Protein backbone atom coordinates (compact mmCIF):
# COMPACT_ATOMS: atom_id res chain seq x y z
CA UNK A 1 0.00 0.00 0.00
CA UNK A 2 0.98 3.65 -0.24
CA UNK A 3 1.88 5.59 2.90
CA UNK A 4 3.51 8.86 3.91
CA UNK A 5 6.70 8.22 5.85
CA UNK A 6 9.07 10.46 7.77
CA UNK A 7 12.40 10.73 5.99
CA UNK A 8 14.23 13.14 8.31
CA UNK A 9 13.60 16.70 9.51
CA UNK A 10 11.40 18.58 7.01
CA UNK A 11 11.25 15.60 4.67
CA UNK A 12 8.33 13.26 4.08
CA UNK A 13 7.88 10.88 1.17
CA UNK A 14 5.12 8.70 -0.18
CA UNK A 15 6.43 5.13 -0.27
CA UNK A 16 5.17 1.66 -0.98
CA UNK A 17 5.04 -0.15 2.40
CA UNK A 18 3.70 -3.57 3.48
CA UNK A 19 -0.01 -3.84 4.32
CA UNK A 20 -0.80 -4.05 8.03
CA UNK A 21 -2.25 -7.25 9.47
CA UNK A 22 -4.15 -8.30 12.58
CA UNK A 23 -1.67 -8.93 15.40
CA UNK A 24 -3.72 -8.95 18.60
CA UNK A 25 -7.23 -10.22 19.36
CA UNK A 26 -8.67 -6.71 19.86
CA UNK A 27 -7.22 -5.31 16.60
CA UNK A 28 -9.07 -4.00 13.57
CA UNK A 29 -7.75 -3.23 10.12
CA UNK A 30 -9.33 -0.17 8.54
CA UNK A 31 -9.35 1.19 5.04
CA UNK A 32 -8.51 4.84 5.71
CA UNK A 33 -11.21 6.97 4.08
CA UNK A 34 -9.99 10.35 5.35
CA UNK A 35 -6.99 11.55 7.34
CA UNK A 36 -5.48 14.96 7.99
CA UNK A 37 -2.16 16.54 8.95
CA UNK A 38 -2.35 17.81 12.53
CA UNK A 39 -0.38 20.75 13.89
CA UNK A 40 1.36 18.35 16.24
CA UNK A 41 2.61 16.40 13.20
CA UNK A 42 4.66 19.48 12.41
CA UNK A 43 6.67 18.93 15.60
CA UNK A 44 7.64 15.53 14.14
CA UNK A 45 8.13 16.96 10.67
CA UNK A 46 10.38 19.69 12.03
CA UNK A 47 12.38 17.16 14.03
CA UNK A 48 11.54 18.40 17.54
CA UNK A 49 10.04 15.18 18.90
CA UNK A 50 12.83 12.73 19.62
CA UNK A 51 12.63 9.04 18.78
CA UNK A 52 11.41 9.41 15.21
CA UNK A 53 12.94 6.91 12.84
CA UNK A 54 13.30 7.17 9.12
CA UNK A 55 10.47 5.18 7.55
CA UNK A 56 7.90 5.78 10.32
CA UNK A 57 4.40 6.12 8.85
CA UNK A 58 2.86 9.44 9.97
CA UNK A 59 -0.71 10.45 10.80
CA UNK A 60 -3.01 10.06 13.81
CA UNK A 61 -6.26 11.87 12.93
CA UNK A 62 -8.50 9.70 10.76
CA UNK A 63 -11.69 7.87 9.96
CA UNK A 64 -12.05 4.63 8.06
CA UNK A 65 -14.02 1.58 7.14
CA UNK A 66 -13.49 -1.69 9.00
CA UNK A 67 -12.16 -4.39 6.66
CA UNK A 68 -10.90 -7.00 9.13
CA UNK A 69 -11.33 -7.71 12.85
CA UNK A 70 -9.50 -9.70 15.50
CA UNK A 71 -11.65 -12.20 17.40
CA UNK A 72 -12.15 -9.96 20.46
CA UNK A 73 -13.02 -6.85 18.45
CA UNK A 74 -15.93 -8.58 16.75
CA UNK A 75 -18.17 -8.08 19.78
CA UNK A 76 -18.39 -4.34 19.23
CA UNK A 77 -17.52 -3.79 15.56
CA UNK A 78 -18.42 -5.35 12.22
CA UNK A 79 -16.74 -5.39 8.83
CA UNK A 80 -18.05 -2.43 6.85
CA UNK A 81 -18.55 -0.16 9.88
CA UNK A 82 -17.62 3.49 9.32
CA UNK A 83 -15.60 4.57 12.33
CA UNK A 84 -13.94 7.65 13.75
CA UNK A 85 -10.75 6.63 15.57
CA UNK A 86 -9.12 8.18 18.63
CA UNK A 87 -5.44 9.02 18.05
CA UNK A 88 -4.74 7.52 21.47
CA UNK A 89 -4.14 3.79 21.75
CA UNK A 90 -5.70 2.90 25.08
CA UNK A 91 -6.68 -0.43 26.61
CA UNK A 92 -10.01 0.61 28.11
CA UNK A 93 -9.49 -1.42 31.26
CA UNK A 94 -6.72 0.13 33.38
CA UNK A 95 -7.23 2.54 36.29
CA UNK A 96 -7.02 5.57 33.98
CA UNK A 97 -9.23 4.25 31.19
CA UNK A 98 -11.80 3.28 33.80
CA UNK A 99 -12.00 6.98 34.70
CA UNK A 100 -12.25 8.08 31.06
CA UNK A 101 -8.68 9.39 31.20
CA UNK A 102 -7.76 7.46 28.07
CA UNK A 103 -4.65 9.40 27.09
CA UNK A 104 -3.11 8.36 30.41
CA UNK A 105 -3.63 4.66 29.67
CA UNK A 106 -1.05 2.42 31.31
CA UNK A 107 -1.11 -0.30 28.69
CA UNK A 108 -1.12 1.31 25.25
CA UNK A 109 2.57 2.10 24.89
CA UNK A 110 4.76 -0.96 24.27
CA UNK A 111 7.90 1.15 24.51
CA UNK A 112 7.04 3.04 27.67
CA UNK A 113 10.61 3.26 28.95
CA UNK A 114 11.55 6.17 26.70
CA UNK A 115 8.85 8.52 28.07
CA UNK A 116 9.38 7.12 31.57
CA UNK A 117 13.00 8.25 31.42
CA UNK A 118 11.98 11.71 30.18
CA UNK A 119 8.67 12.29 31.98
CA UNK A 120 8.62 9.88 34.91
CA UNK A 121 5.64 7.97 33.53
CA UNK A 122 4.43 7.04 30.09
CA UNK A 123 1.21 8.26 28.49
CA UNK A 124 -0.83 6.04 26.15
CA UNK A 125 0.34 4.92 22.71
CA UNK A 126 -0.41 7.25 19.78
CA UNK A 127 -0.64 6.39 16.09
CA UNK A 128 2.21 7.68 13.93
CA UNK A 129 3.72 9.73 16.71
CA UNK A 130 7.32 8.58 17.20
CA UNK A 131 8.75 5.80 19.31
CA UNK A 132 8.06 7.83 22.43
CA UNK A 133 4.45 6.77 22.08
CA UNK A 134 4.93 3.26 20.84
CA UNK A 135 6.16 3.55 17.27
CA UNK A 136 2.76 2.61 15.87
CA UNK A 137 2.30 3.03 12.11
CA UNK A 138 0.11 6.05 11.36
CA UNK A 139 -2.94 6.84 9.28
CA UNK A 140 -1.45 8.61 6.27
CA UNK A 141 -1.75 5.29 4.51
CA UNK A 142 -4.30 3.27 2.61
CA UNK A 143 -4.79 0.86 5.51
CA UNK A 144 -4.11 0.99 9.22
CA UNK A 145 -4.04 -1.48 12.08
CA UNK A 146 -6.04 -0.17 15.05
CA UNK A 147 -5.09 -1.87 18.35
CA UNK A 148 -7.78 -1.98 21.06
CA UNK A 149 -10.28 -1.13 18.31
CA UNK A 150 -13.18 -2.07 20.57
CA UNK A 151 -12.27 1.00 22.67
CA UNK A 152 -10.75 3.42 20.14
CA UNK A 153 -12.96 3.11 17.04
CA UNK A 154 -16.35 4.82 17.37
CA UNK A 155 -19.12 4.23 14.85
CA UNK A 156 -20.09 7.29 12.80
CA UNK A 157 -23.85 7.88 12.62
CA UNK A 158 -25.44 7.79 9.16
CA UNK A 159 -25.76 11.19 7.60
CA UNK A 160 -22.50 12.69 8.88
CA UNK A 161 -20.16 13.42 5.97
CA UNK A 162 -16.60 12.04 6.07
CA UNK A 163 -14.95 15.45 6.40
CA UNK A 164 -17.22 16.46 9.26
CA UNK A 165 -16.56 13.21 11.14
CA UNK A 166 -12.81 13.33 10.48
CA UNK A 167 -12.07 16.25 12.79
CA UNK A 168 -13.99 14.66 15.68
CA UNK A 169 -11.04 12.25 15.84
CA UNK A 170 -8.59 14.82 17.15
CA UNK A 171 -8.81 18.53 16.31
CA UNK A 172 -12.39 19.06 17.49
CA UNK A 173 -11.88 16.59 20.34
CA UNK A 174 -8.76 18.42 21.53
CA UNK A 175 -10.40 21.83 21.24
CA UNK A 176 -13.43 20.62 23.16
CA UNK A 177 -11.22 18.93 25.75
CA UNK A 178 -9.28 22.18 26.25
CA UNK A 179 -12.47 24.10 27.00
CA UNK A 180 -13.94 21.28 29.07
CA UNK A 181 -10.96 20.77 31.42
CA UNK A 182 -10.85 24.55 31.94
CA UNK A 183 -14.42 24.25 33.18
CA UNK A 184 -15.69 26.99 30.87
CA UNK A 185 -19.13 28.11 31.95
CA UNK A 186 -21.81 30.68 31.25
CA UNK A 187 -20.52 34.26 31.21
CA UNK A 188 -16.83 33.40 30.96
CA UNK A 189 -14.34 35.34 28.87
CA UNK A 190 -12.09 32.86 27.10
CA UNK A 191 -8.89 33.76 25.24
CA UNK A 192 -7.51 31.25 22.76
CA UNK A 193 -3.94 31.47 21.48
CA UNK A 194 -3.68 29.97 17.99
CA UNK A 195 -6.43 29.91 15.38
CA UNK A 196 -5.40 26.69 13.71
CA UNK A 197 -7.90 23.86 13.71
CA UNK A 198 -7.52 22.99 17.41
CA UNK A 199 -7.74 26.64 18.44
CA UNK A 200 -10.78 27.24 16.21
CA UNK A 201 -12.50 24.22 17.75
CA UNK A 202 -11.53 25.37 21.24
CA UNK A 203 -13.37 28.62 20.45
CA UNK A 204 -16.36 26.74 19.04
CA UNK A 205 -16.41 24.52 22.12
CA UNK A 206 -16.05 27.40 24.56
CA UNK A 207 -19.17 28.90 22.99
CA UNK A 208 -20.97 25.54 23.15
CA UNK A 209 -20.13 25.44 26.87
CA UNK A 210 -21.55 28.93 27.42
CA UNK A 211 -18.64 31.38 27.16
CA UNK A 212 -19.90 34.92 26.64
CA UNK A 213 -16.82 36.30 24.93
CA UNK A 214 -14.18 34.41 23.02
CA UNK A 215 -10.98 36.21 22.02
CA UNK A 216 -8.91 34.68 19.20
CA UNK A 217 -5.16 35.42 19.06
CA UNK A 218 -3.13 34.73 15.91
CA UNK A 219 -1.08 36.56 13.30
CA UNK A 220 -2.86 35.38 10.15
CA UNK A 221 -5.80 37.53 9.10
CA UNK A 222 -7.50 34.65 7.25
CA UNK A 223 -7.42 32.53 10.40
CA UNK A 224 -8.73 35.37 12.54
CA UNK A 225 -11.52 35.81 9.98
CA UNK A 226 -12.38 32.10 10.26
CA UNK A 227 -12.40 32.49 14.03
CA UNK A 228 -14.99 35.26 13.81
CA UNK A 229 -17.08 33.82 11.00
CA UNK A 230 -17.01 30.09 11.77
CA UNK A 231 -15.80 29.48 15.30
CA UNK A 232 -17.81 31.99 17.31
CA UNK A 233 -14.97 34.32 18.32
CA UNK A 234 -16.33 37.68 19.47
CA UNK A 235 -12.98 39.49 19.32
CA UNK A 236 -9.63 38.95 17.64
CA UNK A 237 -6.07 40.02 18.39
CA UNK A 238 -3.28 40.13 15.81
CA UNK A 239 -0.30 39.55 18.09
CA UNK A 240 2.09 41.06 15.55
CA UNK A 241 0.26 44.36 15.79
CA UNK A 242 -0.15 44.79 19.55
CA UNK A 243 0.94 43.74 23.02
CA UNK A 244 -1.26 40.76 23.75
CA UNK A 245 -1.19 40.92 27.56
CA UNK A 246 -1.94 44.63 27.73
CA UNK A 247 -4.63 44.33 25.11
CA UNK A 248 -6.33 41.41 26.82
CA UNK A 249 -6.41 43.30 30.11
CA UNK A 250 -7.87 46.34 28.45
CA UNK A 251 -10.51 44.25 26.66
CA UNK A 252 -11.57 42.65 29.92
CA UNK A 253 -11.80 45.73 32.10
CA UNK A 254 -8.42 45.05 33.66
CA UNK A 255 -9.41 41.61 34.96
CA UNK A 256 -7.86 39.38 32.31
CA UNK A 257 -9.63 36.42 30.69
CA UNK A 258 -11.21 33.84 33.01
CA UNK A 259 -9.82 31.04 30.91
CA UNK A 260 -6.71 31.09 28.69
CA UNK A 261 -6.30 28.26 26.22
CA UNK A 262 -2.93 27.51 24.63
CA UNK A 263 -3.65 25.93 21.25
CA UNK A 264 -0.13 26.51 19.93
CA UNK A 265 2.41 24.49 21.89
CA UNK A 266 6.15 24.17 21.67
CA UNK A 267 6.85 25.91 18.38
CA UNK A 268 5.20 29.24 19.02
CA UNK A 269 6.35 32.26 17.06
CA UNK A 270 7.41 35.56 18.49
CA UNK A 271 9.24 38.52 17.12
CA UNK A 272 11.79 40.67 18.91
CA UNK A 273 14.38 39.83 21.52
CA UNK A 274 12.30 37.19 23.27
CA UNK A 275 11.85 35.34 19.99
CA UNK A 276 15.55 35.46 19.20
CA UNK A 277 16.40 34.27 22.71
CA UNK A 278 14.20 31.16 22.56
CA UNK A 279 14.99 30.33 18.94
CA UNK A 280 18.69 30.39 19.77
CA UNK A 281 18.26 28.27 22.87
CA UNK A 282 16.06 25.82 20.98
CA UNK A 283 18.49 25.58 18.08
CA UNK A 284 21.29 24.81 20.56
CA UNK A 285 18.97 22.29 22.26
CA UNK A 286 19.31 24.18 25.55
CA UNK A 287 15.54 24.26 25.75
CA UNK A 288 13.22 22.14 23.69
CA UNK A 289 10.24 24.49 23.47
CA UNK A 290 9.48 28.09 22.65
CA UNK A 291 7.02 28.88 25.42
CA UNK A 292 5.77 32.40 24.55
CA UNK A 293 2.14 31.42 24.65
CA UNK A 294 2.38 29.96 28.13
CA UNK A 295 4.30 33.03 29.32
CA UNK A 296 1.65 35.36 27.91
CA UNK A 297 -1.28 33.27 29.10
CA UNK A 298 0.03 33.20 32.66
CA UNK A 299 0.64 36.94 32.65
CA UNK A 300 -2.75 37.74 31.09
CA UNK A 301 -5.03 35.32 32.92
CA UNK A 302 -7.22 36.80 35.62
CA UNK A 303 -6.29 36.01 39.22
CA UNK A 304 -7.66 32.61 40.18
CA UNK A 305 -8.35 31.83 36.52
CA UNK A 306 -7.53 28.72 34.56
CA UNK A 307 -4.90 28.02 31.92
CA UNK A 308 -5.63 25.11 29.64
CA UNK A 309 -2.79 23.59 27.67
CA UNK A 310 -3.98 21.97 24.46
CA UNK A 311 -0.77 22.64 22.58
CA UNK A 312 1.85 19.91 22.67
CA UNK A 313 5.07 20.25 24.64
CA UNK A 314 7.98 17.84 24.68
CA UNK A 315 10.43 18.51 27.44
CA UNK A 316 11.90 21.65 29.00
CA UNK A 317 11.31 25.38 28.91
CA UNK A 318 13.24 28.35 30.10
CA UNK A 319 12.07 31.55 31.81
CA UNK A 320 8.77 30.04 32.86
CA UNK A 321 6.87 32.53 35.07
CA UNK A 322 6.29 30.16 37.94
CA UNK A 323 6.02 33.04 40.39
CA UNK A 324 3.10 34.57 38.51
CA UNK A 325 1.41 31.18 38.26
CA UNK A 326 1.64 30.68 42.01
CA UNK A 327 0.99 34.19 43.28
CA UNK A 328 -2.04 34.67 41.02
CA UNK A 329 -3.54 31.40 42.22
CA UNK A 330 -3.93 30.06 38.70
CA UNK A 331 -5.03 26.59 37.83
CA UNK A 332 -3.07 24.80 35.14
CA UNK A 333 -4.99 22.08 33.29
CA UNK A 334 -3.11 19.90 30.84
CA UNK A 335 -3.08 16.69 28.88
CA UNK A 336 -3.46 14.93 25.60
CA UNK A 337 -7.13 14.64 24.72
CA UNK A 338 -9.06 11.66 26.09
CA UNK A 339 -10.53 11.23 22.62
CA UNK A 340 -12.35 7.96 23.29
CA UNK A 341 -14.42 9.87 25.85
CA UNK A 342 -15.20 12.88 23.66
CA UNK A 343 -15.73 11.47 20.15
CA UNK A 344 -19.29 10.15 20.71
CA UNK A 345 -20.34 13.46 22.29
CA UNK A 346 -18.89 15.45 19.40
CA UNK A 347 -20.48 13.21 16.77
CA UNK A 348 -23.81 13.95 18.50
CA UNK A 349 -23.15 17.70 18.25
CA UNK A 350 -22.39 17.30 14.56
CA UNK A 351 -25.44 15.11 13.98
CA UNK A 352 -27.66 17.71 15.66
CA UNK A 353 -26.18 20.42 13.47
CA UNK A 354 -24.66 22.42 16.36
CA UNK A 355 -21.28 22.42 14.61
CA UNK A 356 -19.95 21.38 11.24
CA UNK A 357 -16.21 20.87 11.70
CA UNK A 358 -15.66 20.55 7.94
CA UNK A 359 -14.91 24.28 7.68
CA UNK A 360 -11.25 23.75 8.59
CA UNK A 361 -10.66 21.44 5.60
CA UNK A 362 -9.19 24.01 3.23
CA UNK A 363 -7.07 21.68 1.10
CA UNK A 364 -7.32 18.18 -0.31
CA UNK A 365 -4.33 16.30 -1.71
CA UNK A 366 -3.16 12.81 -2.61
CA UNK A 367 -0.72 10.81 -0.48
CA UNK A 368 1.81 11.14 -3.28
CA UNK A 369 1.81 14.92 -2.73
CA UNK A 370 3.19 14.35 0.76
CA UNK A 371 5.95 16.94 0.75
CA UNK A 372 3.74 19.62 -0.83
CA UNK A 373 0.98 18.88 1.67
CA UNK A 374 3.23 19.15 4.72
CA UNK A 375 4.98 22.21 3.40
CA UNK A 376 1.73 24.00 2.48
CA UNK A 377 0.37 23.27 5.95
CA UNK A 378 3.56 24.24 7.74
CA UNK A 379 3.96 27.53 5.89
CA UNK A 380 0.19 28.17 6.03
CA UNK A 381 0.41 28.94 2.31
CA UNK A 382 -2.74 29.65 0.37
CA UNK A 383 -4.71 30.22 3.61
CA UNK A 384 -4.24 26.55 4.50
CA UNK A 385 -5.80 25.45 7.78
CA UNK A 386 -5.94 21.70 7.21
CA UNK A 387 -4.93 19.33 4.41
CA UNK A 388 -7.11 16.24 4.01
CA UNK A 389 -6.00 13.01 2.32
CA UNK A 390 -8.50 10.43 1.11
CA UNK A 391 -6.28 7.36 0.66
CA UNK A 392 -9.15 4.96 -0.06
CA UNK A 393 -10.63 7.10 -2.81
Amino acid sequence: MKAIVWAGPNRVTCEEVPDPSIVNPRDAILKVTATTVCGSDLHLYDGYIPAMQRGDVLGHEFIGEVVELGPQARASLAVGDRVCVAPMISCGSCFFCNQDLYSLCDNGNPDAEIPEALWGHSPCGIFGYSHMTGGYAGSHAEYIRVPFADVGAKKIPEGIADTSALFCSDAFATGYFAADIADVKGGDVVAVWGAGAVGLFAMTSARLLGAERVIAIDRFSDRLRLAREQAGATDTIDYKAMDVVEHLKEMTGGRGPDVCIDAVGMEAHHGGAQGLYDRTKQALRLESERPYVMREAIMACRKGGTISMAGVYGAFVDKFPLGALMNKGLQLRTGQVHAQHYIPRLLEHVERGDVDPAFVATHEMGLDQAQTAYQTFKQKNDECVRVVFRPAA
Partner: protein
Amino acid sequence: MRPPIGSRLHGALDYLTGTKLIAASFLPVLRGTFAGKALRAAGAGHIGYSLMTNYELGAVKVLPYKAHLAVDAAGAMGLAAAPYLAGRDGLDRWVPVGVGVYELGAVLLSDPQGKGLGGGEPGWRAVTVERPEADVRSFLGDPEMVARFSPDNSWIGEFRLREAPGGRGTELHAKASAADLRRAKQLLEAGEMATAAGGPAGRRGPLSAMLPTRDTGAAAANGGGG
Protein backbone atom coordinates in the same frame (compact mmCIF):
# COMPACT_ATOMS: atom_id res chain seq x y z
CA MET B 1 28.37 8.76 46.92
CA ARG B 2 27.89 6.03 44.35
CA PRO B 3 29.64 6.80 41.02
CA PRO B 4 26.86 7.76 38.61
CA ILE B 5 27.55 5.57 35.57
CA GLY B 6 25.83 2.18 35.63
CA SER B 7 26.82 -0.86 33.61
CA ARG B 8 24.27 -0.33 30.83
CA LEU B 9 25.32 3.27 30.27
CA HIS B 10 28.97 2.26 30.54
CA GLY B 11 28.36 -0.34 27.83
CA ALA B 12 26.74 2.23 25.56
CA LEU B 13 29.72 4.55 26.12
CA ASP B 14 32.13 1.69 25.35
CA TYR B 15 30.68 1.10 21.90
CA LEU B 16 30.21 4.78 21.19
CA THR B 17 33.76 5.65 22.21
CA GLY B 18 35.23 2.66 20.37
CA THR B 19 33.45 3.65 17.17
CA LYS B 20 34.41 7.29 17.53
CA LEU B 21 38.08 6.48 18.12
CA ILE B 22 38.19 4.37 14.98
CA ALA B 23 36.37 7.07 13.01
CA ALA B 24 38.71 9.76 14.37
CA SER B 25 41.74 7.76 13.24
CA PHE B 26 40.59 8.30 9.64
CA LEU B 27 40.48 12.08 9.97
CA PRO B 28 42.97 13.66 7.54
CA VAL B 29 44.97 15.17 10.38
CA LEU B 30 45.41 11.80 12.12
CA ARG B 31 45.43 9.34 9.23
CA GLY B 32 48.65 7.33 9.14
CA THR B 33 50.13 9.07 12.20
CA PHE B 34 51.24 7.44 15.43
CA ALA B 35 48.25 8.99 17.22
CA GLY B 36 45.85 7.70 14.56
CA LYS B 37 47.18 4.17 14.84
CA ALA B 38 47.02 4.30 18.64
CA LEU B 39 43.42 5.50 18.53
CA ARG B 40 42.40 2.84 16.04
CA ALA B 41 43.99 0.10 18.11
CA ALA B 42 42.40 1.46 21.30
CA GLY B 43 38.96 1.71 19.64
CA ALA B 44 39.08 -1.78 18.15
CA GLY B 45 40.37 -3.30 21.38
CA HIS B 46 37.68 -1.53 23.35
CA ILE B 47 34.88 -2.84 21.17
CA GLY B 48 36.46 -6.30 21.26
CA TYR B 49 36.55 -6.75 25.03
CA SER B 50 33.21 -4.94 25.44
CA LEU B 51 31.61 -7.61 23.27
CA MET B 52 33.06 -10.20 25.66
CA THR B 53 31.96 -8.45 28.87
CA ASN B 54 29.33 -9.82 31.19
CA TYR B 55 27.05 -6.77 31.18
CA GLU B 56 23.79 -5.81 29.48
CA LEU B 57 25.36 -4.95 26.14
CA GLY B 58 27.90 -7.76 26.00
CA ALA B 59 27.55 -10.46 23.35
CA VAL B 60 29.67 -13.32 24.77
CA LYS B 61 29.50 -12.67 28.49
CA VAL B 62 32.83 -14.11 29.69
CA LEU B 63 34.70 -11.09 31.11
CA PRO B 64 33.41 -9.94 34.53
CA TYR B 65 32.35 -6.29 34.66
CA LYS B 66 34.94 -5.40 37.31
CA ALA B 67 37.67 -6.97 35.16
CA HIS B 68 36.36 -4.92 32.23
CA LEU B 69 36.83 -1.76 34.29
CA ALA B 70 40.36 -2.84 35.17
CA VAL B 71 41.15 -3.40 31.48
CA ASP B 72 39.64 0.04 30.77
CA ALA B 73 41.92 1.66 33.32
CA ALA B 74 45.02 -0.21 32.16
CA GLY B 75 44.21 0.57 28.52
CA ALA B 76 43.68 4.26 29.29
CA MET B 77 46.99 4.52 31.13
CA GLY B 78 48.73 2.56 28.38
CA LEU B 79 47.32 4.89 25.74
CA ALA B 80 48.45 7.96 27.67
CA ALA B 81 51.91 6.46 28.27
CA ALA B 82 52.46 5.20 24.71
CA PRO B 83 53.65 8.50 23.17
CA TYR B 84 56.17 8.98 26.00
CA LEU B 85 57.48 5.44 25.58
CA ALA B 86 57.74 5.91 21.83
CA GLY B 87 59.22 9.38 22.18
CA ARG B 88 56.55 11.23 20.21
CA ASP B 89 55.42 14.81 20.58
CA GLY B 90 52.94 17.30 19.15
CA LEU B 91 49.58 15.81 18.11
CA ASP B 92 51.08 12.33 18.37
CA ARG B 93 51.55 12.92 22.05
CA TRP B 94 48.56 15.00 23.08
CA VAL B 95 45.77 13.16 21.26
CA PRO B 96 46.50 9.77 22.92
CA VAL B 97 47.09 11.49 26.28
CA GLY B 98 43.76 13.35 25.98
CA VAL B 99 41.84 10.22 25.06
CA GLY B 100 43.56 8.27 27.85
CA VAL B 101 42.59 10.88 30.43
CA TYR B 102 38.98 10.89 29.15
CA GLU B 103 38.81 7.09 29.40
CA LEU B 104 40.28 7.10 32.87
CA GLY B 105 37.67 9.68 33.89
CA ALA B 106 34.91 7.46 32.56
CA VAL B 107 36.25 4.52 34.59
CA LEU B 108 36.40 6.61 37.78
CA LEU B 109 32.79 7.73 37.23
CA SER B 110 31.60 4.14 36.74
CA ASP B 111 30.16 2.18 39.62
CA PRO B 112 32.06 -1.14 39.95
CA GLN B 113 28.82 -2.76 41.12
CA GLY B 114 27.26 -1.77 37.80
CA LYS B 115 24.44 0.07 39.54
CA GLY B 116 23.83 3.77 39.17
CA LEU B 117 22.40 5.46 36.11
CA GLY B 118 21.18 2.93 33.59
CA GLY B 119 22.44 -0.33 34.92
CA GLY B 120 22.57 -3.11 37.41
CA GLU B 121 20.60 -6.18 38.25
CA PRO B 122 16.84 -5.86 38.19
CA GLY B 123 15.94 -4.37 41.55
CA TRP B 124 12.56 -4.24 43.22
CA ARG B 125 9.98 -2.51 41.07
CA ALA B 126 6.26 -2.21 41.35
CA VAL B 127 3.18 -1.82 39.21
CA THR B 128 -0.42 -1.51 40.29
CA VAL B 129 -2.84 -3.82 38.55
CA GLU B 130 -6.59 -3.21 38.45
CA ARG B 131 -7.34 -6.79 39.50
CA PRO B 132 -8.00 -8.56 42.79
CA GLU B 133 -5.01 -10.07 44.55
CA ALA B 134 -6.17 -13.65 43.99
CA ASP B 135 -6.30 -13.12 40.21
CA VAL B 136 -2.79 -11.68 40.16
CA ARG B 137 -1.49 -14.56 42.29
CA SER B 138 -2.98 -17.25 40.09
CA PHE B 139 -1.79 -15.43 36.96
CA LEU B 140 1.79 -15.34 38.26
CA GLY B 141 1.52 -19.03 39.15
CA ASP B 142 0.66 -20.00 35.60
CA PRO B 143 3.85 -20.95 33.71
CA GLU B 144 2.16 -20.31 30.38
CA MET B 145 1.42 -16.69 31.36
CA VAL B 146 4.92 -16.23 32.75
CA ALA B 147 6.38 -17.40 29.45
CA ARG B 148 4.25 -14.82 27.65
CA PHE B 149 5.16 -11.77 29.71
CA SER B 150 8.80 -12.79 30.24
CA PRO B 151 9.84 -14.08 26.83
CA ASP B 152 13.55 -13.93 27.74
CA ASN B 153 12.92 -16.00 30.92
CA SER B 154 14.28 -13.24 33.14
CA TRP B 155 11.35 -13.60 35.59
CA ILE B 156 12.76 -15.20 38.75
CA GLY B 157 9.44 -15.34 40.55
CA GLU B 158 10.44 -13.19 43.51
CA PHE B 159 7.41 -11.02 44.22
CA ARG B 160 5.07 -9.62 46.89
CA LEU B 161 1.43 -8.63 46.47
CA ARG B 162 -0.31 -5.90 48.43
CA GLU B 163 -3.78 -4.46 48.18
CA ALA B 164 -3.62 -0.96 46.70
CA PRO B 165 -5.33 1.78 48.71
CA GLY B 166 -8.72 3.09 47.67
CA GLY B 167 -9.81 -0.08 45.93
CA ARG B 168 -7.26 0.44 43.17
CA GLY B 169 -6.49 -3.22 42.72
CA THR B 170 -3.25 -4.93 43.65
CA GLU B 171 0.30 -3.66 43.95
CA LEU B 172 2.69 -6.14 42.39
CA HIS B 173 6.21 -5.68 43.78
CA ALA B 174 8.78 -7.89 42.09
CA LYS B 175 12.47 -8.29 41.47
CA ALA B 176 12.02 -8.07 37.75
CA SER B 177 12.67 -5.97 34.68
CA ALA B 178 10.36 -3.04 34.02
CA ALA B 179 9.42 -4.59 30.69
CA ASP B 180 8.32 -7.88 32.27
CA LEU B 181 6.19 -6.09 34.84
CA ARG B 182 4.61 -3.92 32.18
CA ARG B 183 3.73 -6.91 30.02
CA ALA B 184 2.31 -8.82 32.99
CA LYS B 185 0.11 -5.83 33.80
CA GLN B 186 -0.99 -5.55 30.17
CA LEU B 187 -2.00 -9.20 30.05
CA LEU B 188 -3.85 -8.96 33.36
CA GLU B 189 -5.71 -5.74 32.56
CA ALA B 190 -6.07 -5.61 28.79
CA GLY B 191 -5.93 -9.30 27.98
CA GLU B 192 -3.18 -8.77 25.43
CA MET B 193 0.23 -7.16 25.16
CA ALA B 194 0.40 -3.93 23.20
CA THR B 195 2.83 -4.02 20.32
CA ALA B 196 3.68 -2.03 17.25
CA ALA B 197 6.36 -4.45 16.12
CA GLY B 198 6.18 -5.60 12.55
CA GLY B 199 3.88 -2.75 11.55
CA PRO B 200 4.18 -1.15 8.13
CA ALA B 201 7.16 1.15 7.67
CA GLY B 202 9.00 2.70 4.79
CA ARG B 203 12.69 2.44 4.05
CA ARG B 204 14.61 2.54 7.34
CA GLY B 205 17.75 4.57 7.90
CA PRO B 206 21.09 3.00 8.85
CA LEU B 207 20.69 3.90 12.54
CA SER B 208 17.17 2.53 13.02
CA ALA B 209 18.25 -0.98 13.93
CA MET B 210 20.51 0.35 16.68
CA LEU B 211 17.83 2.27 18.56
CA PRO B 212 16.71 0.51 21.72
CA THR B 213 13.20 -0.88 21.96
CA ARG B 214 11.37 -2.91 24.60
CA ASP B 215 8.59 -3.76 22.19
CA THR B 216 9.14 -7.48 21.88
CA GLY B 217 6.45 -8.00 19.28
CA ALA B 218 3.76 -10.08 20.88
CA ALA B 219 2.14 -11.64 17.82
CA ALA B 220 2.73 -15.29 18.62
CA ALA B 221 2.31 -14.91 22.37
CA ASN B 222 -0.98 -13.06 22.05
CA GLY B 223 -2.52 -15.69 19.83
CA GLY B 224 -3.69 -13.01 17.41
CA GLY B 225 -4.25 -13.61 13.74
CA GLY B 226 -7.45 -13.43 11.76
